[in-house]
């Protein structure tokens, strides 16, 4: 499996651990991944508000680069917000007038977008290109005894995402079971965590984060596949505790970090020390104990 990789802005800062663990896991699975040179921001939620056209031109710039250099490879993204912008732009390209307009803008960058490259989400790639069976073959330290609450969030599965159900997604279940973990189902798996309003309307955004965290209480940790969800659920647990009236403290991990843990990858690629809510899974110490007693 070969991919051209669009990291997205958060992968250079707040969610570096997502990028590093993803690349390490894909390497272990035998994927060939090449970073898209000269990529720029997809525009996030801001560009489409500032200008309708800019909202598709910025993703199209990166898709055009991927077409040029990708040689037919799919373009892999790990951020659900970037993914939504790319899939939205792929849809827009189906309209010849809109595509022509996008290309009128891209002229100044010396690029042409044809609408031929496919943007893929890391969860889609893990669940469908590799799948639980292939992942299971690489598990060295099964996550037995670890209860994981899958959390898909909104834009991973809505509205332009073709690989899972937009109300009751299941892509993570097989993967988590392949790792040996116990899946903790809850009623907020595809709800919104509120990240895009948490800075402007904290009273609303934090309440949405609270509803997700509250639903996941009872699990040892949460598994996410979006850097925005991870930050929002990880960073505000003190404030959420005040809203809920009791202390909430639950590690929020990127799915590739959990896969890496089960693959026996070192802490240097898992980067648990970067999390705001400490990743002190009892399970980790148990594994380490088993490991040291085996040595």
């Amino acid at each position: 499996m070969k991919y051209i990789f669009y990291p997205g802005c958060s992968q250079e800062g707040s969610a570096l651990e997502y990028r590093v663990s993803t690349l390490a896991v894909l390497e272990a699975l035998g994927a060939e991944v090449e970073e898209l040179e000269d990529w720029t921001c997809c525009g996030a939620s801001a560009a489409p508000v500032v200008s309708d056209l800019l909202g598709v031109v910025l993703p199209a710039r990166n898709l055009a680069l991927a077409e040029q250099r990708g040689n037919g490879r799919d373009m892999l993204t790990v951020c659900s917000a970037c993914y939504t912008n790319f899939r939205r732009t792929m849809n827009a390209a189906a309209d010849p007038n809109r595509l022509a307009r996008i290309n009128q803008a891209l002229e100044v960058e010396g690029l042409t977008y044809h609408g031929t490259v496919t943007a893929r989400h890391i969860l889609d790639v893990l669940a469908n290109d590799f799948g639980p069976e292939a992942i299971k073959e690489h598990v060295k330290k099964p996550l037995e005894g670890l209860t994981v609450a899958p959390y898909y969030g909104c834009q991973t599965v809505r509205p332009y995402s073709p690989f899972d159900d937009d109300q009751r997604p299941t892509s993570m279940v097989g993967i988590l079971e392949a790792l040996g973990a116990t899946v903790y189902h809850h009623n907020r798996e595809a709800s919104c965590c509120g990240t895009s309003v948490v800075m402007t309307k904290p009273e609303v955004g934090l309440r949405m984060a609270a509803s997700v965290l509250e639903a996941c209480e009872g699990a040892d940790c949460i598994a996410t596949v979006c850097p925005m969800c991870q930050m929002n659920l990880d960073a505000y647990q003190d404030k959420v505790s005040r809203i809920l009236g009791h202390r909430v403290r639950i590690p929020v991990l990127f799915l590739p970090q959990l896969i890496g843990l089960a693959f026996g990858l070192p802490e240097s690629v898992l980067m648990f020390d970067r999390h705001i809510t400490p990743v002190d899974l009892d399970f980790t110490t148990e594994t380490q104990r088993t490991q040291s007693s085996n040595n």
Partner: protein
Amino acid sequence: MSEPTAEPLDLTNLDRTLAREVTPGRWEKMLSCIQCGTCTASCPAAPAMDLSPRKMWRMVQLGLTEEILHSKTMWLCSLCYQCQVRCPRGIPLTETITRLKELALERGIVSSPESEAFYRSFADVMRRYGRMRELEFMVRFFLTSNPLKALGFSKLGLTMLRRGKVHLELPRLGGEGRLDRLCERVAELEGRR
């Protein structure tokens, strides 16, 4: 019993300008809204809105632009797309909210200054560097919206710096931004300059 005060709606004489403007190419869809309320029932932010989504879509049908732009409803949308995928009429509701926000910025009627600061700060940093610099964006946002509010986030900011989640980088102020030419070209094509 008091007499009803509202005039009956003249459905043959609706103002469709707004629907045409915010659902480009698909405004007939907007007019097909049957007011079932699935959007409001699906919206995680609805309880905090001054106009419920259902009500707002009716007002879009009626062309009540000013009233809609003055409400806070669109600025509370977190883009979760739940209303859009559940709408039984297949109306692109979330996408239309984005168009309403664009219209509000364009007309300068923004009922949520912090939201405008958020989008403009983000767009400025992106345009300058081509990629987001998270810390610079946050600083710009708080300085242009409400510096006092920054206090609520400052402890988290320091933790993020310590964990290496954000980096201190000197802002580059002069010179051409990485995406200046592309953004200017887009503005030109949209007839904004």
